[in-house]
């Protein structure tokens, strides 16, 4: 499928509905969707590579903690990631190679601060072979 994500409105915060042909694709599209809430992805080059590995309770926790790991990278290492090669094993393990670049306030016009991805009403469903997840972010 072509559609990677949609942005959904929420009174206080903001959400995205992410789609994927498998869990790894869903994780990648959710991460890209989150990046679009923060910055115009076209302004981010792929010059830096980073690795993220996670092991969580289940697929929902894996999705939330994956997104929060990217927010951590942005906060602490000032890294904006836009491309992802992800392997998900057994719904609880994720290994990702991420490409992007270091935050440069002269070139990256930041739109808003995303505090965290939340677990609020989060389910990963499979509809006709498409994985779908609606994630609410704390803004």
């Amino acid at each position, binding site marked *: 499928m072509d559609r990677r994500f949609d*942005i959904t*409105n*929420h*009174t*206080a*915060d*903001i959400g995205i509905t992410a789609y994927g042909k498998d869990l790894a694709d869903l994780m990648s599209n959710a991460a890209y969707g989150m990046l679009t809430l923060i910055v115009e992805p076209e302004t981010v080059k792929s010059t830096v590579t980073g690795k993220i590995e996670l092991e*969580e*309770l289940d697929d*929902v*926790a894996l999705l*939330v*903690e994956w997104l*929060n790991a990217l*927010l*951590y990278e942005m*906060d*602490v290492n*000032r890294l904006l990631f836009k491309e992802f090669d992800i392997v998900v094993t057994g719904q609880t393990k994720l290994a990702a190679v991420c490409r992007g670049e270091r*935050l440069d*306030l002269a070139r*990256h*016009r*930041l*739109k*808003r*601060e995303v*505090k*965290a991805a*939340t*677990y*609020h*009403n*989060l389910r990963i469903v499979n509809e006709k072979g498409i994985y779908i997840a609606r994630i*609410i972010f*704390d*803004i």
Partner: protein
Amino acid sequence: MGHWLGELNKIDDYRWEIPQDYKTGMRVAGRIYADEAMLGAIREEQSLEQVANVAFLPGIVGCSMAMPDIHWGYGFPIGGVAATRVRDGVISPGGVGYDINCGVKLLRTDLDEDEVMPRIRELVNHLFHNVPSGLGSEGKIKLNDREMEEVLSSGAGWAVKRGYGTPLDLEFTEEQGCMKVADPGKVSDKAKQRGMPQLGTLGSGNHFLEVQVVREIYDAEAAGAMGITHAGQVLMLIHTGSRGLGHQVCDDYLRVMGEAVRRYGIVLPDRQLACAPVESEEGRDYLSAMACAANYAWANRMCIAHWVRDSFSQVLGRKPGQIGMEQVYDVAHNIAKIEDHVIEGRKQALCVHRKGATRAFLAGQEGIPGRYRHIGQPVLIPGDMGRCSFIAVGTERAMAETFGSTCHGAGRLQSRGAAKRGMRGTDVAAELASRGIHIKTGNRGALAEEASSAYKDVVDVVRAAQGAGIIRKVAMAAPIGVIKG
């Protein structure tokens, strides 16, 4: 998500109940403090479902409550209050939120509007440059590991020790700016790394600095005790929280609680409500880590207040002592605390979660500074940047019904997307300037998301809270200068 169609029974003009049998698994009823006119907007989103969901928490007592500024959050509604028994109840990081101890600090001055207004542009510029704010910004304070531990364990006291404030400021801060259950050993290295460069930063979103002018005084005695004496007096309001450190603490412990929910067999309708018994290892660890984040937030607001004082001195060419810029009070509005309350005639230790709600203790209560002991705890209720803010005090009714809690602000009415669409083509800054409000922001694009039309009118919120008897208004102030991150 759509309109909420659940059952809502009227108790009186300002109290509404979601019956306990609305949803199987609710342990208590839900109670909403609002007037009829506000309910229309409240029903248009899912915040009432969230009130019902919070009623599932083991050990919850009284009701799952929502203040008049209720709006749709994640897990808890914003404006939510829930108290659980320490003995056999739970503590939930979702009942505090990611921005632990987001709160407000109010400073009063000896200055009048006519002295400040001619310099307001310059003052706002100074404040903007002296207080680091905005996306991706880093603070001016460089902490080493040892100092970070001190911030987490001592809170605003650390800031005062470093010269960012006075002992008197501590006296007029909730908890004197330090929750003593804090244990930096329970805070992850990741959280500390996020907090390290951000101490003394405002952040962005709805965080702000406001130069305000007193417009009305409703209770001269209470206002006088706070050093607020007349209309036209200049005040300063600071709204921020625990920055990335708090976000990471919340996220870290949601993971812990996700496992705890399984271990303790707790059934919840929303994973964001994940929790553990207050007296379990997980519960105690979270409370100790949350307290560290709360302390960081109090230190953060204290440092910012120092630069605010500096900015006033620089612009007005007077020493701080000649400006009379003293702290009125500093309150948390995202926090969980262990407090004693009377339930069914018996004093009990409770864990009171306030998620977008403010403590509002009655006169005479322990924990209120001596100067305010006879009037009640000051409650600070900021409105949106185009309207006004209120100063109030806690009441007997709040002690009896809401575990000494009340509203925390205006509460959002529109989503950020809807706010932006509604303001398309409007220069929000120019519109505010035409009404005598000078604003400076690092992110003009996001201003529309914070426009007045995106928020409930704080006047309505405060009227409902006062109507329900859970606050007593003291004064109202309106902004003349705003700094948004």
